[in-house]
């Protein structure tokens, strides 16, 4: 997500950071066992590795358990209001494009109350990274269903089961024209860290869905995808240029007549038939197809679904400003005297 030049005004060399440099003195107030801890640790570690000064990072969040994240990052941070982190971050990034802006949101914050701002952030393509913690529940308000909760879910607000068809965050993102879309999960620090790093490198809005366990109100929501025993068969680990194989190479995803299908090698086809992942595909169709499949019918895709390059909003805006400034002097006196003027003399 970055301007790879170091931000202006620093003469000294980049300090060598450790994870501790990114840890604040505030007590972390998530429930013991919450998946948020793992993500925090991964991000803190990654921050120490990125060639970015600590003061140039800003974490902006909405409201939710996950949105407490900025308090624990020893960088600049803004814990805004519910659903609006994306909007706040937009104004911030325009004002200072040199900052590295991170948006932390939840499935409620980002897809329920904040769905519209997210959609517009993605289409505008600010150079920021969105980390959406999807625990398929409202954690902070103690356990109501969320837009990603599965049909029939019984929660405090749906004692007979929820009846709203869930959203796929990745499908929403692609439907909005997002330029970088990927998925990872809390406890696979290495995979998550790699994906976030790619996102940081991407110039444009990166959107990452992070499966996150809420052990209090929705424990085990993702075990079918993430647990050791089954994860090989349950996950499609996407790698650019590699065949879309899973289940230890026994199965793969093919595209037939425009639709994704699971094939068992040697049964429905050969490795030939398995599609090769093109993470930089100019055409959006396949990424969307992947965004809509999941266990149990399909493996759940993990990794970068698609990244395409498109000018960022702030670069286009600042180019217009530069152009305007080249054409016209910013002369306040002249501006005030614009249009027809006349003099009234002393009389």
């Amino acid at each position, binding site marked *: 997500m970055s301007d790879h030049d170091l931000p202006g*005004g*620093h003469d000294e060399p980049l300090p060598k950071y450790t994870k501790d440099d990114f840890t604040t003195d*505030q007590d972390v107030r998530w429930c013991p066992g919450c998946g948020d801890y793992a993500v925090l640790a991964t991000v803190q570690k990654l921050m120490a590795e990125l060639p970015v*000064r*600590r*003061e*140039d990072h*800003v974490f*902006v969040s909405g409201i939710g358990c996950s949105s407490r994240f*900025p*308090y624990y*990052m*020893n*960088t*600049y*941070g*803004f*814990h*805004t*209001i519910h659903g*609006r982190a*994306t*909007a*706040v971050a*937009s*104004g*911030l*990034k*325009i*004002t*200072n494009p040199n*900052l590295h802006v991170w948006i932390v949101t939840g499935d409620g914050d980002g897809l329920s109350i904040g769905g*519209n*701002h997210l*959609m*517009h952030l993605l289409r505008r393509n600010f150079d920021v990274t969105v980390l959406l913690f999807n625990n398929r529940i409202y954690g902070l308000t103690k356990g109501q269903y969320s837009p990603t909760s599965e049909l029939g879910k019984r929660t405090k607000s749906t004692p007979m089961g929820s009846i709203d068809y869930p959203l796929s965050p990745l499908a929403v993102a692609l439907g909005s024209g997002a330029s970088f879309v990927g998925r990872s999960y809390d406890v696979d620090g290495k995979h998550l860290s790699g994906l976030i790093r790619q996102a940081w490198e991407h110039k444009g809005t990166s959107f990452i869905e992070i499966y996150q366990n809420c052990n209090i109100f929705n424990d085990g929501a993702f075990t079918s995808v993430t647990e050791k025993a089954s994860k090989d068969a349950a996950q499609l680990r996407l790698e650019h240029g590699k065949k879309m194989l899973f289940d230890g190479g026994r199965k793969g995803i093919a595209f037939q007549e425009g639709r994704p299908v699971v094939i068992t090698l040697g049964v429905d086809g050969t490795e030939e038939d398995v599609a090769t992942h093109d993470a930089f595909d100019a055409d959006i169709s396949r990424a969307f197809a992947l965004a809509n499949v999941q266990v149990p019918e399909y493996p759940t895709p993990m990794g970068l679904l698609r990244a395409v390059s498109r000018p960022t909003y702030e670069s286009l*805006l600042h180019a217009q*400003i530069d*152009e*305007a*400034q080249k*054409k*016209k*002097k*910013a002369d*306040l*006196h002249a*501006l*005030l*005297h*614009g*249009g*027809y*003027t*006349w*003099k*009234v*003399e*002393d*009389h």
Partner: protein
Amino acid sequence: MTTAAHIRRELDAVTIRFAGDSGDGMQLAGEQFTSATAVAGNDLATLPDFPAEIRAPAGSLPGVSAFQIQFASTDIFTPGDEADVLVCMNPAALKTNLNTVRRGGTIIVNSDAFTETNLKKAGYAVSPLDDESLKEYAIHKVPIETLTIEATKGLEIPSRTAKTCKNFFALGLMYHMYQRPMEETLAFIDAKFLAKTPLIAEANKRVLNAGWNFGDTAELGSGFVVPPARISPGTYRNIRGNDALALGIVAASVRSGLPVFLGAYPITPASDVLHVLSQYKHFGVRTFQAEDEIAGVCAAIGASFGGGLGVTISSGPGIALKTEALGLAHMTELPLLVCNVQRGGPSTGLPTKTEQADLFQAIFGRNGECPIPVIAAATPADAFESVYEAARIAIKYMTPVFFLSDGYIANGSEPWKIPDPDSLPPIDVNFVKTGETVQPYERDPVTLARRWVKPGTPGLEHRIGGLEKADKTGNISYDPDNHDKMTRIRAEKVARIAQEIPPTETAGDPDGDVVVVGWGSTYGSIEAAVRAARLRGVRAAHVHLRYLNPLPSDLESVLRRFRKVLVPEINLGQLSFILRGKYLIDARGFNQVRGQPFKVAALTQAIMNLSEET
């Protein structure tokens, strides 16, 4: 230029009104007349009156568009209660504007437009030109369209196109009638048309002259002269409120050195500020047309957090949506300029009409104890200085500030004595610098403002947010005493803005019977009414408040110098309620919610009546 042979009569003040179909160019004619009048040295005030529809069917009643101007040889303050002359381009315009003309006034009608179809569209069974209905007025039927086409004969343009010049005929006629200089308009025509459509330029100029000449030869009672007013020396331009607002914001940016970030979503009558500011990119102005009003204000808050001058602008329904975010700006103590160009409410209400009914919302309309300073413009030109002041206070006190304008100010215009940028009050910005050991919620002892730290500054990393903050550190705090303390500090900070407010000025008598307290765009009507009442023997004064929250510290003592307090507002009594609550003074309201400025006569009467109460 030909001069009329008729006897010239001097007049003190005249109100004229152009009315026609939306497609007839009445706003343009009005604006040109305004410029010419300004150049002639008169004081003036204008009132554009648009239809609510984009383009209602031609000739229909909702499609009528009007423009009123009063100009005078003395100070004047309103566009006039009643028109002395009404120019009517079609029957619908006559129908909807007749009640704006004074009895005995002059009506000039484009008789060509009084066809059966048009009469029917306007709901006339018989033509009002043919019956007795207009007998109380001096009616002049002028075949404006025919004369317009006549004037363009010989130019190779279709007669449909020629007809569209008819507003210039009407304009020329009025220029003659009131002896305005035409140079400015001729130059305008050239600037607008010469390069691309020279034939149109020529046609318009011919038609304009034809109008003048028609006035010269016809017996329309021409040759009125309104001598120049005594106006303080300086360079002037005519300015619309929305333009003044935009310029004030740019001036605040230049003087503070902070880039403007405008986060806004279009809404009548505020959108023009977005349009105008989007043309000032050379001043580094960043305009962001957000997906909605919430995103607009939130992005502006983000901009302020980043060290810019965050601005948002909207009107009633949009301001309502920003409510929650204003709480965040208040809690995080970031500067933010929130402009509300008020319109008729409640709900969608009357989008194209003016009203002052959002004062309660500005002062009280948030959850929790969340005081926000409120500043209002009094006239179109005053929008410049007052919005500049609002920005200055936002920055100095690290607080969101409400700036109130309204539809009447936004679209109205008046001559503006252009200030010298260097004479504007300084706006000092004092970001914390690396190495300073400052906590995020440490405060200036005088203003109580916290210090502003720009992300990107090494060593000052910190986190802010909407949860209650611990004193000084700004960490989250659930401590009861801290909450009480912080709530009071934030309130006290806003209260201290009173120290910025200059002594309250009274226009009129220093003490006596009635003090009339106003705010916002009622300035003109109140000033005129107070003068009229004083001429009729009342000891009265006008106090016009720019600062509505906090109120000036001397206001109570000023009000107590008068027996009675009258508060005219285009609402059901909002400022009057606030003055009562604050000072326990029996402030009385004079209230109308008609989407229009007050009539001076009615207001004068209200002052007279109150002065007679014991």
